């Protein structure tokens, strides 16, 4: 399937907040109540359309445990967007957000779009974190915020697509260097500049870039 752009996402957050379920809901449109623990990084992809352009989303679903933190870190690089997820029914997952955010900011490209997600909104009766608190945190740290439910699919689509929209806008504004794949954005094969030598040049620029960082 051809695409105009490829955006790479990463989903982070404590274990058990529903990262894998969110991904499954977005890619397969289903909810699997008993999900295997993610050991390492799982991977999903889906095509979406923004501004009548086909955009392929490549999503890495990471393990939340501390033991896998080093693996997760290696995935920040090369991600254009991140979904930082907490569980509205478990306050400690909200409390850990700062750690996650620091980690992400430190290891990612500075333009990475981060979306804050309060998941499991269907479990209203067990809510521990108020929506306002999530909003406040997002405002404070310059994130986009949304409450979702991987179970009911509420806002799941929006969470992924809004992130993509934001990335797309940044591309339009020229904030992202789309020729640098380390930014987590890739131009589709058919949409590459006609001069075939250009991507080669771009990739050499990319390696320079990573040398700088």
């Amino acid at each position, binding site marked *: 399937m051809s695409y105009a752009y490829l955006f790479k996402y990463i989903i982070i957050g404590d274990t058990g907040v529903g990262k894998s379920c969110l991904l499954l809901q977005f890619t397969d449109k289903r909810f699997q109540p008993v999900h*295997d623990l993610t*050991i390492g990084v*799982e991977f999903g992809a889906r095509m979406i359309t923004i501004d009548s352009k086909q955009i392929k989303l490549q999503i890495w679903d990471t393990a939340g445990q501390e*033991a896998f933190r080093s693996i997760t870190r290696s*995935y920040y690089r*090369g991600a254009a967007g991140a979904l930082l997820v907490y569980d509205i029914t478990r306050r400690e997952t909200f409390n850990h957000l700062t750690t996650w955010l620091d980690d992400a900011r430190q290891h990612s490209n500075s333009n990475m779009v981060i979306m804050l997600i309060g998941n499991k909104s269907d479990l209203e009766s067990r809510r521990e974190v108020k929506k306002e608190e999530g909003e406040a945190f997002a405002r404070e740290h310059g994130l986009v915020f949304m409450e979702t439910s991987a179970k009911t699919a509420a806002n799941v689509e929006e969470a992924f697509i809004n992130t993509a929209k934001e990335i797309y806008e940044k591309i339009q504004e020229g904030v992202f260097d789309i020729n640098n*794949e380390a930014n987590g954005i890739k131009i589709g094969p058919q949409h590459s500049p006609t001069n075939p030598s250009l*991507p080669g040049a771009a990739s050499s620029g990319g390696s320079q870039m*990573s040398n700088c960082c």
Partner: protein
Amino acid sequence: MAFLEWRKFQFFDLRQNIEGSEKLLELSKEINITCTSAGNNYLVFGDSLGQIHLISRSWHINTFRGYEICIEHSFQLRSSPFLITIGHDEPGINPLIKVWDISKFDRNGIPFCQRITKAVAGSYPVQVSCLAVCDNQQLMAVGFLDGSLILYRGDITREKSSKQKTFKDVKTEITGLAFKLTANRIFLFVSTYKEVFVYNITQKDKEQKYQLDNIGCSRKCSVLAESTQESHFMVARNNAIYCYTPDGRGPCYAVDGEKILLEWFRTYLIIISKSNRSSSLPKNIINNVTTPQSTNQVLITVLDIYNKFIVYQYVMPNIRAVLYEWGSFFILGQDYRIYSLEEKDLQSKLSLLFKKNLYDVAIRIAKSQQYHLDGLVDIFKQYGDHLREKGDHAGAIEQYTKTIGKLEPSYVIRKFVDSQHLEKLIIYLQALHKQGQATEDHTTLLLNCYTKLNNTVDHTASLREFILSKESDLNYDVDIAIKVCRQGNLAEALKLAEKHEKHDWYIKIQIEDHQNYVQVLDYISSLKFEEADHYMKKYGQILIEHLPFESIQLLKRLCTNFKPNNSNNASDNIISAHYDIEMKSDPEDFIHLFLNNSSGLVEFLEHLITAGCFLSSSVYNTLLEQYLHVWVGTEASGEKQKIAHRILELLQNPDIKLNKSHALVVCDMHSFSEGILYLYEEQKLYQQILRYHISRNDPHSVLACCTRFGHQDPTLWVQALWSCVRDNKELSIDLLKQILTVIAKEKLFSPQLVIDAVSTGNAEITLGHIRSYIMNELQQEMKKSEEIAQLTGNYKKDTEKLKNHIEQLKNGVTHIQGSRCAACHHHLELPAIHFLCNHSFHQHCFQTCSDDESECPTCQPENKDLIELLKAREYNKDLHETFHFQLDKAHDGFSVAAEYFARGLFNNYRILR
């Protein structure tokens, strides 16, 4: 600990001391193996002396010299006989690539060498670190210690057609190479110690490099994992195995440990890593005297990538290679022992899992290996049993549900039916229905379960849901369902019936259980004509009994122009309207419904008549009966009159096909005289009318009847007379007188007979009663005889006159006195002609008006008539047959006989001429 999070199983058996493989052990005493490869039915070992050893499946070793000095790399193509090796024939020069065809051997047992090419990376010789050949035999890549990379395109077996291109994009040793062909693109994955990248080599001289990661891996620690689902270039690092696609990073499997070797086999990733925990691992058979240093041990891990299990893990002495051939894989130990790692068959795997009650895993594995359905069902069943024993009834049902279609449902039902888990049973039964596997018994059971749980709102709701579900979702016998529902959930039964258009059930329930006749009528009104007709016939009686007015209205509609009430059926209406087929019920079919409701029936039928319906005679008969029935039952005379009037109207209506004899019987039964008389009259049964009146002893009517019909049937009078005289009844004398008057006037009966009749009758009639009649008769007779006598006298006189005249003509002289011509009435002149009849003519007048000279033209017509009359008499005399015929035919035989008599039938006339 990350490692512990993979589920671990031992799905492989490690076997050592493979029969025949000890030869290899012998060989290893002399050589040092430097490279290994496998494919095309051979294991290939290269040694430090430049020899190549081809090992067949029966462990026969074929050794030949490949290089003069040493051999460093080998690559045996999987499915073609080409073996590619890299080694040295001379010291200090560029390595040599040789391509061998191991299907062709020369006399010395050396395979045919197809090609020898120098691997030249640059201006000075560099050692080759890595070799990859594409299975299509068109691509080969050689990596060097200095980071150079040579890509060979074209047939690898022939140097001439092969083109090479050198890349010097990196400065560190190439540690891994792999080709990946997609439908329309070709990639070459490359790993170094420091990075992972990919070349898009689809187009020659337009190769593009993309970096995939800036961490690399060591030699042997990368592999292209190809499977039907997807393929990844996998790179082993200490914390995890990282996957790459040409687009970038893919998933990552966290597996701890310093990796030594990575191999891919079907869907299994084989990871050999340094074992630093040998002491903690259980003692195993290989961990024996031959391996003195435990530090030298390795951990072999087989990862099932798709199920995310570790399917084998084992600590063993250091190994040299992992080779995959002949459907299993082999491990070459540091000590040159060959071990084979053989996958357990599915059944053994499953029983292993069952022992641990890991049914979910068993199911996953069975599915991923395309286990046959029966086997899967058996697992579901076992899993279900297990969960049930654990008390997880919901879980158990979920598993049992998957056995539907294979496992006998009674097995499951028995387990739940007597327990407190009806909800679970319901789930199972619902599933059974959904999959169309439910029998009537199951439907009954399910509905009974619903009913039992009916006290809770939840289950009423689910019952409703069940009932209202689409037919495609649930397959059940609706009749059974209704029957069962009817026992406890009338509302549901009704809904079911309505939904599935089980009209009979619907109506039955409404009538028998709800006595909701209004609803039933509404319902029937909304049905299609045929159905409405059918159900009105079936249930009409009870409906009329309870809702006479409405029911009759509906019947009227059915018999005139019925259109379903329901707006939902609008389209149907359009269709029927389109075809314009008028559908009407036969009223006759409904008549029996009006059991005790004559007035209702009358109303119904009258409506139909006014609506101009075509009704059969039996319907009219019924109507007549009903009318009479009502008429008899009516007391008020005014009302009675009205009804009588209507009955007569019915009888008189010329358009109505009434069975008259039946009508007569019915009228008679109800003593409806107007009707009877009308019918008699209509059929000209005047005698009957008369008899009727006589029997009713009604002299006026008798008289009226006779007067009215006497001219058509004069015998009525006689009849009346007879009736007067025959019986004792006090018939009015007036009547007798009148009768006699008429009889006398019409001469119906001779007085003789009248007197006979009167005298023979039983009635007490005295002479006085008939005196005037007899007197009259006698006077008349006398008058007549006087008249006749007078006439006879006259005739006698005439005859005498004529006789005299004839005598005179014969004998006497006739004086012709006539002075005028009988033709022109002028005075006669001579010549004249004279006849005896006293007519005279001018001769010229006679000649013009006569055609017979012997006759008088004036008298001729009269004479002619006379002669003809006589002739006719003579002629008629012979025609007795005609006479008899006419006599038979004649209304009044006497007059015929009289005429013939008068014509002299019985005389012997002779014509006088």
